[in-house]
């Protein structure tokens, strides 16, 4: 009734789900996200992962983000589609040799007097 686990539930949790010191991964953390390009090095407080803790990473599988993953009951948001598009552009740029297609695409719109 108070939102916490009952005795029985606590023992089930303890037996089935609680991560132990004997587990390969003893703790799972989701570190706060930071943008390296927005902060200078000194101000970023990085949490060193403790031994046996696994820090969930949003960038570990970035190469996989160039396509939308299948969904279940909740479709992808516009933000997500924009993110996938950007990852596709980045992926495309990675494989370009001399010319940059993004630059070629934008150049016709460049008016130096706008810049100066």
């Amino acid at each position, binding site marked *: 009734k108070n939102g916490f686990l009952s005795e029985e539930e606590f023992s089930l949790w303890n037996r089935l789900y609680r991560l132990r010191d004997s587990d390969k991964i003893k703790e799972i953390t989701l570190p706060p996200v930071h943008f390296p390009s927005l902060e200078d090095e000194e101000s970023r407080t990085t949490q060193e992962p403790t031994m046996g803790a696994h820090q*969930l990473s*949003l960038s*570990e599988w970035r190469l996989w983000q160039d396509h939308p*993953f*299948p969904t279940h*009951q909740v479709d992808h948001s516009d933000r997500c589609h924009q*993110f996938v598009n950007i990852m596709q552009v980045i992926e495309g740029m990675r494989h370009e040799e001399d010319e940059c297609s993004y630059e070629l695409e934008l150049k016709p719109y460049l008016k130096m007097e706008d810049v100066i």
Partner: protein
Amino acid sequence: GGFRKELVSRLLNLHFRDQKTKVSRDALQLMVEFLRIFVVEAAVRGVRQAQAEDLDIVDVEQLEKVLPQLLLDF
């Protein structure tokens, strides 16, 4: 399965800056359902990724692959 409203109420109060903030019954019920949908969506997307890799067990790696898009979708 699903979140108990007493638990969700405690979670919400944990994050309220002003302790006098109150949550209506409807808002609480909505939050309970929202969290259930979030968890099931995370779990099923993880399952889909594991199935795409012909795995029987969904591990942290499969969840990490779908996590960026999941967080952007909520």
